[in-house]
């Protein structure tokens, strides 16, 4: 079986698997972290240690979807409300008992050099394997000039990271906030400051909703509420995009700086996707808060089995494997053509593809009666009665391929696995990208009449 251990992340960090508990409520105490290690977690980023705080209740709120709890998870909990001393004493104990697991100290103190130097030194003395700089918390701490208030200003990120690097002897991971227009800029600041690694994403600014009974926000703290940090499965695509943006950036990507990826990882499939897009260690929180430490078993097992099936021998082999496929729209082949095809033997005739295509796409799915005649929906007789008639007269959705633009909406709505396939069909046109058009046939990209003529010439028909 493949080796899923992590070797020398950021130069020095080793652990039996790439899964770390993210700096969050699950890593509040040494006792919890030790139980997590017993359960199989490779590492843990300690809940952020730093300035004095007082928490409120309630702290969490979730977006449920279609009967499933916690598609997205919002929190307004602050950094650790336990003293620096308490946390570091426990950290020393954990490190002593679990030398093979990675223990990372997450830090957040006031933005001055001395404060950072002091906390860095104390964490190192406690035996931490690495430091994570929390430049990401979007609520509470940011009002005090820390967390996201730092992460949103690349210059601040760079300055503080430089201070940390002056004192640090162990790897320093700079954690980024997603609450920024261009994630690349703070990452470049981290690279410039000499950080040993980056991690992303922290939580996303969010308000989960208002209670329709009380009309208060959720959660409600004595009648008030405000934005918190959003996490959980809902945020994964946002995290993946930001991860890929770093890996493909000419400065951050080329620097080779390792990245610890997080944001909605709940399954081994999620984990594999983060690895493919450039993460070399992974952090998990919401899934653990939903189901407990035990989720680590399938994360490791599933990842290992998948790597085995795909022939990957180590986590490093997977890391960044799909990054070369990340590109910009301007580089996509405009001549590539795929159409949707419905497998009638698998189709259950729910007609969700039909209504989606008809109402919101390109009207290229027909309903064909069992007699082979095109019919309108609700064609059944008003006196139709019983399952036999309903089933016998039910039409079959069929894609009119000549008109299909290959948008893939039907594929997404189809509830049956492998029923709708996107099939490549020859377009009869030679490969061309928007970039090439811009360069070689500028007029086409700037003028509608020329564009129309171009389309006619190459045979692009817009329905």
């Amino acid at each position: 079986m493949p080796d899923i251990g992590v070797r020398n992340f950021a130069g020095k960090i080793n652990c039996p698997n790439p899964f770390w508990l993210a700096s969050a409520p699950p890593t509040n105490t040494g006792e919890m972290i030790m139980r997590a290690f017993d359960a199989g977690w490779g590492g843990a980023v300690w809940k952020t240690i730093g300035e004095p705080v007082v928490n409120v209740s309630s702290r969490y709120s979730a977006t449920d979807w279609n009967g499933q709890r916690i598609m997205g998870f919002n929190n307004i909990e602050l950094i650790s409300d336990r003293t620096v001393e308490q946390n570091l004493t426990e950290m020393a104990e954990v490190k002593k008992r679990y030398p093979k697991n990675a223990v990372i100290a997450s830090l957040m103190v006031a933005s001055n050099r001395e404060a950072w130097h002091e906390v860095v030194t104390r964490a190192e003395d406690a035996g931490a394997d690495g430091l994570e700089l929390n430049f990401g918390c979007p609520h509470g701490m940011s009002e005090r000039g820390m967390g996201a208030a730092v992460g949103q200003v690349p210059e601040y990120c760079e300055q503080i990271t430089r201070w940390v690097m002056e004192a640090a002897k162990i790897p320093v991971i700079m954690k980024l906030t997603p609450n920024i227009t261009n994630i690349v800029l703070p990452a470049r600041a981290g690279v410039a400051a000499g950080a040993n690694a980056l991690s992303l994403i922290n939580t996303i600014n969010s308000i989960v909703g208002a209670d329709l009974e009380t009309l208060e926000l959720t959660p409600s703290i004595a009648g008030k509420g405000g934005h918190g940090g959003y996490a959980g499965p809902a945020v994964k695509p946002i995290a993946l995009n930001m991860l890929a943006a770093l890996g493909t950036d000419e400065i951050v990507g080329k620097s080779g700086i390792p990245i610890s990826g997080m944001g909605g990882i709940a399954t081994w499939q999620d984990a594999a996707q983060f690895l493919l897009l450039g993460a070399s260690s992974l952090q998990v929180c919401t899934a653990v808060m939903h189901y407990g430490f035990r989720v680590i078993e399938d994360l490791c097992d599933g990842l290992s089995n998948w790597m085995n099936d795909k022939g990957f021998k180590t986590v490093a082999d997977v890391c960044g494997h799909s990054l070369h496929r990340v590109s910009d729209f301007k580089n996509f082949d405009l001549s590539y053509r795929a159409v949707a095809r419905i497998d009638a033997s698998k189709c259950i005739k729910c007609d969700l593809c039909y209504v989606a295509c008809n109402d919101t796409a390109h009207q290229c799915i027909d309903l064909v009666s069992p007699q082979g005649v095109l019919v309108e929906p609700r064609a059944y007789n008003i006196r139709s009665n019983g399952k036999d008639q309903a089933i016998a007269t039910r039409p079959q959705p069929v894609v009119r391929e000549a008109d299909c633009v290959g948008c893939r909406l039907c594929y997404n709505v189809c509830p049956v696995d492998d029923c709708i396939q996107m099939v490549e069909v020859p377009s009869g046109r030679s490969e061309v990208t928007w970039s090439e058009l811009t360069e070689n046939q500028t007029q086409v990209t700037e003028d509608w009449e020329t564009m129309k003529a171009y389309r006619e010439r190459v045979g692009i028909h817009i329905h």
Partner: protein
Amino acid sequence: MSTAALLDDPQLKARFGELKPALTAQAAVIEADRCLNCFDAPCTAACPTHIDVPGFIKRIASGNLRGSAMRILDANILGGSCARVCPVDVLCEGACVMVRQNHKPIQIALLQRHAMDTFWASGETPPAKAVGTNKLRVACIGGGPASLACAAELCRAGARATVIERRALPGGLNTYGVAEYKLRAADSVREVEMIRQLGVEFRCGVEVDSAAALEALEAEFDFVFLGLGLGAMQRLNVPGEDTKGVMNALEVIAAYKTGHLRELHGTVVVVGAGNTAIDAANAARRLGAATVYMLYRRSEQEMSAFDFEYEHAKQEGVQFLWRRLPVAIRPDAHGRLLLETVQVRQADRKLEVIPDSEATIDCDLIVPAIGQSPLTELLQELRGVEVRDGRIAADRETGQTGNPRYFAGGDCVNGGREVVDAVAGGKRAAKAMLKTAEVAHA
């Protein structure tokens, strides 16, 4: 409306507890979420009243329970009782696309019941136009599902509708003829009460049995809707049929549902193998009969009861005697009954008695349940209303009979089908009458 005729009988409740318990609110949402929300859904096509099934189910999922109930009631005013009595295996649930994926179909009936129960608990009435905003006046003869649906549809459009029922309580078979573990008489009456609140007038205990009575109706109303149902059950036509201890299936069911038959013992023989026969046989078991036989002149494959009803009867402990024919009934010396039977076999299209196959069954009650014969006496009084094969001949789309002032729907037209079919028939006739009146006044 008086429900005094319905006793709140704990013994009845205990013996005829609901077959399928209601869904809890959370279970309903979980089940509703499972629904794919098919477009132009086959369940809707399969329902004779074409309820927008995904529409009401997704309203349950979203927590819009009032909207869900309205969606149901707009298509089927008896959505509450249909949720309990519909043979959904052959209707909506049977057509569910989940079945094609080898998944359990969405539990449409239980979800519909959830929406309707919640609505009833709210004490609300569906919106209707003020009665009289439409000048049309219609008498609906018979107080069963067809007439109720017809009258409700008319009232909701602002017309005046009067239901005329010969029994003490309206509801027809919903009140008197459905097994109590499927639909309690009290629930049927509650549903009728909702229809009364829409503005439907009820005249109960009134028999329309003469030309004079019909003339009076014709003078008072623009149209007459015939929701007569079927007449008395067919007789066995064997000697001794009028012996004490012979009671037809509908009589047995009505008697126990209204508290007039509380206990049975010994052996009961039900003659016939339709759905009503099974209701009667199961009732006999639950009322205390030690042995219940169902006697059927044909084979298991030919019985008209639905498969799930047959399975249910077996679970209730009902025993089946196939290809056996009753030939005579006589009392024995101890006040019990002797049912003489013979074994038969199919010879071409006839049943042939097998020699020396006579057998006498000692029993305490004999329940003929071999279909219902149409009530023809009244119909003969109706000028121009054609009766064919014991059924009222009516236009398939409109329910209009040979006499343009008479419309008909439900069992008296279709020969005896489901409650939901009767609702569909009543609704179609109401729409047709409204349209006819509109054209006439235009």
